[in-house]
């Protein structure tokens, strides 16, 4: 009996130990390799950007001065349009997410969530086409009304654009593009609010809105911030839709409704690359390096705000 057991155990152990070791080692190797590849790719991109940008960083251009003089207006445009897009998108996204997670009847919540996710799958060039052919002409009367009656506010001053291809329209398009990212992430966080806390709040006599304010929003705050940062990352790098919709140039201007708007770094690269001479290519890549750095800073800030690497989720 004891012999039998021992023999079975030894056989089993040897088998399991052997297989387990091979499978374990192989899987660990694959995972570590995949993780390593990400670092290598990121490093390769950084090295490429720095190497290609170096000539433009060291030598200025008589037309623009040094690199900062060239990139500053585009940097302003990039941050300004992304800020506006988030300003529009975040409240709407939180609203949609709350509707899906707490207000919508079960039958409606799933299709609404599905449609929002679908929005994320629409290619940016389609948003761009929609922006120039539909949204921009539609918004022209709004532009005229705003400049006429609210023109005393600096943001709305200047001559209204005759085509509607302005900072306002472009940031609206951008807001719609980042909306699904922010919505689906915040929705997930809201759904994970502890049921007991919600019920406790309601039991204490809170209305539904009070419950959301006291329980759901505080619980999801860091999730909202993290989602916004991801949305911001997308907005900063969005190229095609901005290049198509925005009537941009190299300038610093916070006005929302005129034909003259600051362009973004990404759009400027797309618009200038095909016809650039070799000096121009280096200069454009140098602006790409600036964008790369900004995106990293934004992501790091997002991590800091949410308190370390993903503590609350999963």
């Amino acid at each position, binding site marked *: 009996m004891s012999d039998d057991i021992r023999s079975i155990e030894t056989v089993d152990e040897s088998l399991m130990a052997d297989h387990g070791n091979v499978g374990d080692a192989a899987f660990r190797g694959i995972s570590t390799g995949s993780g390593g590849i990400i670092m290598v790719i990121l490093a390769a991109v950084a090295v490429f950007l720095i190497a290609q940008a170096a000539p433009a960083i060291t030598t200025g251009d008589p037309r623009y001065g040094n690199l900062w003089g060239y990139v500053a207006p585009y940097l302003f445009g990039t941050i300004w349009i992304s800020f506006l897009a988030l300003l529009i998108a975040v409240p709407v996204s939180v609203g949609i997410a709350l509707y899906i997670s707490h207000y919508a009847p079960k039958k409606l919540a799933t299709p609404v969530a599905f449609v929002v996710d679908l929005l994320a799958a629409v290619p940016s060039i389609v948003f761009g086409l929609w922006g120039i*052919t539909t949204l921009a002409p539609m918004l022209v009367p709004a532009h005229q009304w705003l400049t006429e009656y609210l023109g005393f506010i600096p943001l709305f001053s200047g001559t209204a654009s*005759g*085509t*509607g*291809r302005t900072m306002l329209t472009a940031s609206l398009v951008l807001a719609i593009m980042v909306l699904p990212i922010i919505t689906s992430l915040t929705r997930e966080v809201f759904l994970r609010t502890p049921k007991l806390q919600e019920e406790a709040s309601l039991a204490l006599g809170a209305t539904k809105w009070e419950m959301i304010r006291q329980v759901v929003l505080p619980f999801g705050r860091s999730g909202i911030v993290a989602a916004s940062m991801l949305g911001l990352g997308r907005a900063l790098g969005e190229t095609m839709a901005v290049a198509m919709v925005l*009537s941009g140039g190299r300038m610093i201007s916070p006005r929302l409704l005129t*034909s003259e708007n600051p362009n973004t770094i990404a759009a400027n690269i797309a618009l200038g690359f095909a*016809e650039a001479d070799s000096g121009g290519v280096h200069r454009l890549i140098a602006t790409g390096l600036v964008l790369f750095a900004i995106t990293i800073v934004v992501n790091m800030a997002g991590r800091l705000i949410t308190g370390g690497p993903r503590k609350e989720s999963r």
Partner: protein
Amino acid sequence: MKYPRTSAALGCLIALMVTACGNKTPTDGLSGVVQGTGASSMKSAQEVWVAQFQTAHPGVTVNYSPDGSGAGRTAFADGAAAFAGSDRALEDAEMAAPSRQCAADTTPINLPVQISTIHIIFNIGGVGELTLSAEVLAKIFTGQITNWADPQIADVNPGIALPDLPITPVHRSDDSGTTESFTGALAQIAPATWTEGPVNRWPTRYGGEAAQGTSGVVAAVQQGNGTIGYADASGVTDAMASARYSPDGIATPVGPTAEAASAVVAASPRLEGRGINDWTLELDRTASGYPFILVSYAIACSRYADSHTGEIVGAYLSQVISEEGQNGAVPQAGNVPLSGELAASIREAAATIR
């Protein structure tokens, strides 16, 4: 049952492949693949020329990728493309830096192969005709005239009722040969007003609305009200209103017609100091005709290090500048066919490429 059918199908396939190969057998000794890269404005015309050339020489494959003039010149200098299509000829510095693929001690040559007109399109609520003088046009595009009711516009348009409407001048937001030609024309016809010279990116200080590509400018002009912009003939439909040009506002205005464009080319001398087979033109846009034209060049080596490539490029460019090539591209590209003595000279130059 199954096996014979499969083998029969296979036999058919092989037979098909053999006959297909048979069709590709060169009939005139010319065979190979040649890569061209360059201006997107030449895309439509190059497609026609490639089709014509490959029909005449079934053994040859010519690829043209419309990546942009700058990309084309870079590809030519690197040897990545055997010839380049460009909205401007090579500058002296570029001529001096030899392309790897050209034979030692030879310089590249520039051949004008496509002339297009740049239309000044507008959309002013129902106004169908508009004449602009050099000065008025330059002032509109530099933001010095801002309303269609401005008396300076009315002066050159007697009898046309122009509305009290702000002007939205539309320019290209991307770097473009069209912008370089248009601003080059403004710099020649109105040097006192347009002081930036020819530039391929619109100067920010002149303001106005920016749109991506020819199609972007056309869309912005069509959708806006009170808009005016410039676009290659290839992107402009007959239904769109184009302004006519009168240098001083008194002379009979001319539209963007083939004759008016040819007049400018005919009045333009060759750039001096280039090789005998180089036909870089020094455009004189003030002499006569319609000044807003875009001359696109084919850039090639006069002698290729690889004579085989040279033979194909020479034959191809001869086809491009032939009467058949120039007229054949008109329906697709809307170009102004090069003709007469100039075309004959360029044809001769193309034939010397080896």
